[in-house]
């Protein structure tokens, strides 16, 4: 059940109505049932994994809190992390590591017989695993009181708006909200939630799904395509992945908001960043901050000199890349970004951020470095990425007219123009600043967004890119 499907809108309409008319003390139960139903609409059996993950963290954290022995507490945390990552490894990385082992054994002239077990990747496993790990670590560190109500803890793990593709919420933010039974339907929440949902829907179905048609066509037939078209397809992918993922996040935040629950921001116009550091502060914020708090800082952060900082950055980004998928392309993507960040940290500031012109040049450079990474991210193999890169480097001038005049892609281009216009005007919070604009302007934009969704939106389009992670 995708957010951009009519089934979801009907489902949410029912849940929204029941939620606000249900007795306050049972709302958590309604949300929990709705969340499990939502998740089971993909593959019912994988609800077992969420239940296992929930039970592991619930009981181990209770055990940690109940024990005064530091060693036992440490074992409890280690076991929680091991079991959670074990689930993730089994379902996401087993095939990849078996292939790797086969290559290593083969290189030494030995035989390695991989298991023929083929597991379907459970949707959202990387998201809820990281969410529960952060809970265990926070409880271990004493930053968070343990949750004793199993049902409410289960709701924290499985809260449907952010279950399958984030934002990866911290227990300290989400748990107190799902535990509250005095939430009232505020007009501001309803209005902003609805608007964020429409904004996210517009990004997904008008821009991302239309751009996807172009990207899929050209990346699938990359060997026949010229560098110019592949470069344009890469720009379109940058647009697609941003609108797909930030669109999902906006919809998730909007849905939660309509239920009176506030989720963290996940994107803050990242392509307007004039440094790599700034880009990573504004892109997939919930993952970036997770990696910073639970990996980069424990590794030593920037406290061990420039080389140590660079090493920590590289480690964090490579693991961040691997989090996205079991493929060398994601590892290289992470390494590339880690390398750019390290260079930037090493030389303090490489790119100027002051003055409109210089900032514009910096934004241009940062955007292209990010696009370089996207080539690996989007490609099926490293070989494909290198071929595409090679073609782009040996770019011959091409007639942009052919792309612009091809009306199969004009929808994405028009959608992108509306997006850039709105995001450039109202950075960070589209509808908070937006409310200050005059009424005619605001209503025109609402109508424009809804009409665009009806006329240009890809109906029954592809699922969200980040569901596969």
């Amino acid at each position, binding site marked *: 059940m995708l957010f951009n499907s009519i089934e979801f809108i009907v489902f949410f309409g029912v849940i929204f109505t029941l939620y606000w008319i249900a007795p306050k003390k049972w709302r958590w139960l309604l949300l929990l049932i709705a969340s499990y139903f939502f998740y089971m609409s993909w593959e019912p059996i994988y609800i077992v994994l969420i239940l296992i993950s929930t039970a592991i963290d619930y009981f181990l954290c209770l055990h940690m809190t109940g024990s005064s022995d530091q060693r036992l507490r440490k074992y409890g945390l280690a076991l929680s992390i091991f079991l959670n990552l074990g689930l993730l490894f089994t379902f996401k990385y087993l095939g990849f590591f078996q292939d790797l082992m086969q290559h290593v054994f083969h290189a030494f002239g030995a035989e390695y017989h991989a298991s023929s077990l083929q597991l379907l990747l459970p949707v959202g496993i990387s998201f809820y695993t990281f969410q529960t790990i952060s809970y265990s670590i926070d409880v271990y560190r004493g930053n968070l009181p343990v949750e004793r109500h199993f049902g409410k803890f289960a709701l924290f793990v499985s809260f449907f708006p952010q279950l399958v593709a984030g934002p990866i919420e911290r227990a300290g933010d989400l748990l107190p909200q799902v535990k509250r039974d005095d939430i009232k339907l505020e007009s501001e929440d309803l209005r902003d939630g609805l608007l964020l949902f429409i904004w996210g829907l517009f990004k997904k179905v008008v821009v991302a799904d239309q751009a996807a048609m172009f990207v899929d066509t050209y990346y699938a037939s990359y060997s026949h395509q010229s560098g110019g078209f592949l470069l344009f397809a890469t720009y379109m992918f940058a647009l697609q992945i941003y609108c797909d993922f930030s669109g999902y996040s906006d919809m998730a935040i909007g849905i939660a908001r309509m239920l009176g629950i506030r989720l963290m921001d996940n994107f803050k116009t990242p392509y307007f960043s004039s440094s790599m550091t700034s880009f990573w502060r504004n892109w997939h914020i919930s993952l970036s901050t997770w990696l910073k708090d639970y990996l980069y800082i424990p590794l030593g952060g920037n406290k061990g000199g420039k080389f140590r900082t660079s090493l920590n950055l590289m480690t964090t980004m490579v693991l961040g890349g691997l989090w996205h998928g079991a493929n060398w392309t994601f590892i290289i993507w992470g390494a590339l970004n880690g390398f750019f960040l390290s260079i930037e940290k090493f030389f303090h500031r490489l790119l100027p951020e002051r003055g409109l012109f210089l900032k514009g040049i910096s934004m241009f450079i940062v955007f292209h470095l990010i696009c370089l990474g996207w080539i690996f991210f989007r490609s099926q193999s490293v070989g494909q990425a290198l071929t595409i890169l090679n073609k782009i480097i040996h770019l011959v001038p091409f007639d942009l007219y052919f792309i612009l005049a091809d009306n199969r892609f004009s929808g994405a281009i028009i959608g992108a123009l509306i997006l850039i216009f709105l995001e450039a005007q109202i950075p960070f919070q589209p509808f908070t600043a937006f409310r200050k604009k005059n009424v005619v302007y605001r209503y025109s934009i*609402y109508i424009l967004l809804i009409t665009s969704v009806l006329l240009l939106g890809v109906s029954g389009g592809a699922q969200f890119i980040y569901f596969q992670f």
Partner: protein
Amino acid sequence: MKQTLWKIGIVLLIVIGTDRGLGWYFDKKYASNHFHYANGHLNYYLQKVHCDTLLLGSSRVLDGLVPQVFGQRTYSIAEASKHLGWCAAVLDLMQQYGRLPSKALIINIEPEDFLNEFANKLKSDVHYLKYYYDKNPFIQSEINRSSPFEWVKYLSSLYRHNGNSLILLTNPWQQIGRLPTLNGYCPISPTPQDSVRTLQDIDRAHYPKPVLNSSTAQHYFKHIKSICKKNHIELIVITAPFFKPSQRSVECGQLMAKYLAKENTRYLNYIEKDIGELNQLRFWFDNHHFVDAGAQKFSVLVKKDVQLP
């Protein structure tokens, strides 16, 4: 809260007004569209053409069969990437509009359409005819099969033009796809890359033995067959050739032949038939599409084989 609900209500009213107004505008645009994209050729056909023989299928018919080789009263309503579901719906529309061919229907069916994995593709092809949702009962019922709530989308007048609106607006500026002059045929001109592309596209992969048991494809095929039978139209199914077909294509073609024999339908399977001179690279754009010269030769071959009166 009251004020917010009022505002939401006002926005909703404006949206409904805009939807109806723009819907009316795009309906007019659609009705006068005769460009290739956004079903313009189909529209033109439904409004202006009466033919003896109709050619139907995907791009392998669109740029692979030349209607005029079959005679001046032969017309092609083929469309790139459209398969059996689309063909069944189009034929139903023609029946409704009284534009069925008077003698024969030559339809290209890819045997792979009968694989279960293509069922969703066949169904989704019907959605390209969403303009006719409330005009044609067959199209409406096929679209409604995709989801129990699909009808909700059609409460909007604009949604029937979803995906076509920009094309309808920009068609007059397009250089390609103007009013059909070749009875619906779209020739492909040769390019220096053709032979490279054709050789690269040859499918050498090894697949498990195919099973052609898609109930969706059978449902669409039977619909086409029943329309032809009811209107005394001769139905001839063909499968256009491939440049060096894969083993899987050959196997699929053989299974298809068995199925169509059971259905008492004439079938010309060019995957296995000797296509003589057409085996030369110069006739191909890629391994499943002809360039114009190839299409001309292939059409002559098909005309000879079908032996229409």
